[in-house]
Structures are given as C-alpha cells and as structure tokens.
C-alpha cells in the first residue's frame, strides 16, 4: 500500500485503505494534540487559581519559550500522515552563541509563523482534534457495547453490535480526512517551500532526462557511426597490404585501437540512456542490465504493460544503480530483482546475499532516495551487517491499475 499522504490514501479502494496503516496513523496524529490540550487546561487552571493577569503573563512567557519547540514537534508529527519529511524553514545563525541565534530568529518570518501557529494550535485546533476523535469513536463504541448493557437481551444487542462495527470504517475516513487536512495546513504554514522544492526537482529531473536522450542520440548518430566506418576502412585496408608486412602490423594495431574505442563508447552511451528501455519497456531493460551484471541476478519482473515514461526511467535508474552497488560492494554470490504493480504503485525489490552493511547516507543510496522522492515514491533499505541486503522502492503510478 503506497500513498504519500493520508489524503492520497483515501482515494484508493476502500478495502485497501481500511487494511492499511493510514487510519491508525491518522488516529495517532490527532492524539498528539493531547499535548496542546494539557497546556490549554494548565492555562485555564492558572486563571482560576492565580487570576487572569498572572495566567496571561504565564501564557505569554510559555509561548515565547515553547513556540519553536512546538513547531518542531508539529513538523515531526507530520510524518505520521505525510511520508515526505517536512523541511526546516529556519536559517542557521551566522555565528555561534545565544545573541546571534536570537537575532537570526527574531528577524526571520519562520519564527513568527511558528508563534502564530502555536497560538492557533493551543487555542483552537486541539479541541477540534480531540473532539473529532472522541465523537468519531463514541457512537460506534456505544453501539458495540449494546450486548453488554444491563437489561439488553442478546437478540436486541446483536443488531446494535453489528451497526457499531459497520460504522467504524466511516469514522476511519472521517479521521483520515481531518488529519490529512490539518497536515496540509501545518505544512503550508510551518514548512512553506517544500512543495515547490519537490516540484522544481521533478522539473530538473525531466530536463536532465531529455538532455541525456539528446546526448545519446548525438553520440550514436555521430561519433559511433564514424568509428564503425573507420574500423571498416582499416579492415579493408588490411586486405590490400601483404600479410606479415610492417604496414600490416601497424594497421592491425590501429584496428585494435578502433575496436577498444568502440567498446568504451558503447558502454558510455548505454549508461547515458538505455535505448531498449524506450523501445521495449522496463521488463526488457531490467532483463538486459541484469544479463550484463558481474554477479548473477535472478529477474522476476511482471508488469501489466508499459508504464508512464517517468516511472520507467526512475525505476530503471534504481535497478541499474542497485545492481552496480551489488557488483561493487556486496561480495554477493547472487542477486535478485523483483518488480510488480500493486495498488497503483510499482513495487521493486532488489537484493543480494552479500555482506550487508550498506550505508543509506552514502552518496549512491542518498542519490537514489532523492530520485525516488521526486516521483513521490519511497525507498526502504534493509542491510544488517552480515547481510542479506534488500532495497525496496515504491513508485506511485496512477494509471498502472
């Protein structure tokens, strides 16, 4: 089951949504507001016990001290219902020390957004969150308690129990809808620019891909054809000189050089852009790249047909990089690549029986994660020391059935 956010998950089939972790994640997300509830209740209690003046002063001080940690907590909380991590909008202070830090914070817009959001969260949002959860669960739970109420016969209680169970999915949707909406608002206020970064990255990747295709075309139509022609001309020249003569030896050397140049150029071009991917799709391209791998690789890719270009390109990039990593670092005897389309997402698993201990922060894997993030997909890596290593990548693909 793959969706980046709870809201996106709701657009899938009801069975897939209800079986997934999203309703529970939404519940956990909303219950985090209990922290704000405690703060609000403390302020109200202070007003009763020490008078409104003292309480107001305490609230102002608390807000000044806690607004930034509260916003950081909100950004962290987003992970429950939005897989894309929220960026930190705060700038690094130019110098160490509290004074530089304070000056930086006071002059940046993000601080005031954090403060404003904290005020809204403590005064309004928490009771919406907690209220929605409690009212959403109250009716089904009450109905389900029917058979256990005093003075209820089982025959009266049972229909109520059934009605309660049937109502639960409805409330799962209600919770996910509010949690998702609240997360959208939070991201817009506390992590502005995230969406733009993701969009501009996607544009860069597209431009980069078009450029690669152009380079491949140019090399193929230019240098490669000329080299083939050169090799052919040398071959013909060798026919015209007496065998064993010094000239023939020179020509043989030149011929060998041309061959090497062709082989190197071929590998280079293949790396720039694999033509078979364009012509025959992901399954064929993965089969071919696996066939050239130094470590034997089992391929099991079964797809319903051609996938959208962007998905194919990203998936192929992931597989090639992962197989290159296996050949370079794993010491594996065998590798595997599995690919399926499930619930509107392409799921790829690449693994090996090598030494494990792959570092997700390493440049190769970090680059892969970035590339996958552009497609709104996600990547998980399991590589304990001693192996086995497996990399799982999910790329959303609405038209993949």
């Amino acid at each position: 089951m793959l969706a980046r956010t709870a809201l996106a998950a709701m657009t899938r089939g009801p069975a897939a949504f209800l079986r997934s972790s999203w309703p529970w994640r939404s519940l956990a997300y909303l219950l985090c507001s209990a922290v704000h509830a405690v703060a609000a209740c403390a302020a109200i209690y202070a007003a009763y016990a020490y008078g409104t003046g003292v309480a107001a002063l305490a609230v102002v001080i608390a807000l000044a001290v806690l607004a930034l940690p509260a916003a950081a907590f909100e950004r962290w909380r987003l992970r429950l219902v939005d897989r894309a991590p929220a960026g930190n909008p705060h700038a690094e202070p130019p110098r160490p020390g509290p004074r530089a830090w304070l000056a930086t914070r006071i002059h940046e817009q993000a601080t005031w957004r954090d403060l404003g959001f904290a005020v809204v969260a403590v005064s309004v949002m928490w009771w919406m969150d907690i209220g929605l959860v409690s009212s959403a669960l109250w009716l089904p739970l009450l109905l389900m308690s029917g058979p256990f109420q005093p003075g209820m016969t089982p025959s009266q209680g049972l229909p109520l129990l059934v009605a309660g169970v049937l109502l639960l999915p409805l409330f799962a949707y209600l919770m996910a809808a509010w949690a998702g909406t609240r997360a959208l608002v939070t991201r817009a206020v506390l992590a502005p620019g995230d969406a733009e970064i993701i969009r501009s990255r996607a544009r860069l990747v597209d431009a980069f891909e078009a450029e690669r295709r152009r380079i491949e075309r140019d090399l193929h139509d230019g240098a490669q054809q000329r080299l083939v022609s050169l090799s052919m001309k040398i071959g013909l020249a060798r026919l015209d000189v007496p065998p064993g003569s010094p000239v023939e030896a020179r020509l043989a050397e030149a011929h060998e050089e041309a061959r090497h140049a062709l082989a190197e150029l071929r590998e280079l071009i293949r790396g720039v852009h694999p033509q078979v991917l364009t012509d025959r799709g992901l399954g064929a391209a993965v089969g071919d790249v696996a066939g050239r791998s130094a470590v034997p690789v089992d391929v099991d890719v079964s797809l319903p047909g051609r996938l959208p270009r962007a998905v194919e390109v990203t998936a192929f990039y992931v597989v090639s990089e992962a197989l290159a990593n296996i050949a370079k670092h794993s010491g594996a005897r065998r590798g595997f690549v599995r690919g399926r389309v499930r619930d509107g997402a392409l799921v790829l698993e690449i693994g090996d029986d090598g030494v494990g201990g792959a570092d997700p922060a390493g440049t190769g894997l970090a680059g892969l994660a970035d590339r996958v993030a552009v497609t709104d997909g996600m990547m998980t890596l399991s590589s304990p020391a001693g192996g086995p290593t497996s990399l799982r990548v999910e790329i959303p693909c609405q038209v993949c059935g």
Partner: protein
Amino acid sequence: MRIALAEDVVLLREGLAGLLDRFGHRVVASVGDGEALIAAVAGDRPDIVVADVRMPPGFGDEGLRAALTLRACHPGLAVLVLSQYVEQTYAAELLDSGGGAGIGYLLKDRIGDVREFVDAVERVAAGHTVVDPEVVRQLLSRRRGPLSRLTPREREVLGLVAEGRSNAAIARVLVVTEAAVSKHIAAILTKLDLPPAADDHRRVLAVLAYLRGQADPPYGVRSGDRTRP
C-alpha cells in the same frame, strides 16, 4: 548473392555496399528506413536482408520491427540485423521468428573484421544462425544448474557453438583439431542433457534454446504489450 541493405547513415551504407561488392556480392536495394526496406523486398526478393536496428522516423527499433515483419511475410528470407548495442531482448525476438534459421544478430562493430563479417552474411544467407559473441557472453554469464558443471574449456566451446560456428571454425579459433572439438561438443551435450545433433545448425538452435531457457526465469519477463501509455 543479392543483398538488400537498410541503414540510415549514408556513410556506412555506402561503405557496406562497397565492402560486399568487393567480395563479389550484389547490393540490389539500398534504403534508409524500415518502410522502404519492406517495399524493396516485396518488389525484388533478395537472398538476404542486412538491416540496422535504429532507423527513422523514430530512431527506436524500426529496423528490427521491419525485419520481424519481413520474416513473417516471407518465410525463409534470411535476415541479418546489426545493432550498436546487443540486447538479449532483441536477440530473443529474432530467434523466435521463423524458427531461428537464417537469422543473424551482430554488433555493428563486427563490420570492421571484414572477412568474418562477410562470412557471417554468407552463413546467414545459407540458412544458418549467427549470434554475436556479446549476446552469448551475457547468456553464459548466468552460472546456474548444469552450466556450472562444464570445464572452462567446454564453456569456451559452448560459447562458440552458440555463436553459430561450425566445428572447423571452432577448431581454427581454439587452435585444436576438429576431432578434439567434436569430443568437447559431445561431452557438453551429454552434460546439458541435449540430444546429439549431427547437423550443425540444429545443434546451434538447441544450445541457444537451452541458454535462453537458463536466461529466462520460470515465470518469464513479460515486456507487456507494446502500446505506449
């Protein structure tokens, strides 16, 4: 022989025509795209078609598709496909057409080895199967099952058989006697549980089928239909 050439780069097309001409063959049609090739073959059936994979208008695999179309319409027409990169997928599609007889699939680089290249053209025209060593290397690289029981020398011989070479040619490459080659081949066929075949050609197809069976997982890689989304 009468040869139809399809290659979009004029420089190479003329070079190839000159080369084949030099060895006493006649280029009866020389075209630059798949459609023109199909038309040329329909008008004047050559002994063999030599085609580049990548041609206009899309610069994808038009040449290969034209080759497959020709094989379907004219059973028995010999076709040699040249490619800048050898891909197993393309090799498999060609080998599946018309029972794999009279089919060749070579890297374009091989044109430089003039004699071997012309020899390959002649063998394909004679109904043999010629597969690029690079494809065979990829197929052999899956060390699984009975293949691992072969000695290094036997693997070498198996590779040459898969490329479509005759016993005499294998003996020349490995600098051994033909009798030694026959012995190796008999041992290989026994180890791989393949029927002994007197006829070179059937043997090549059996070996290729075996290697491809190794290459494809039991559930198969489905490339899906070829409609673009």
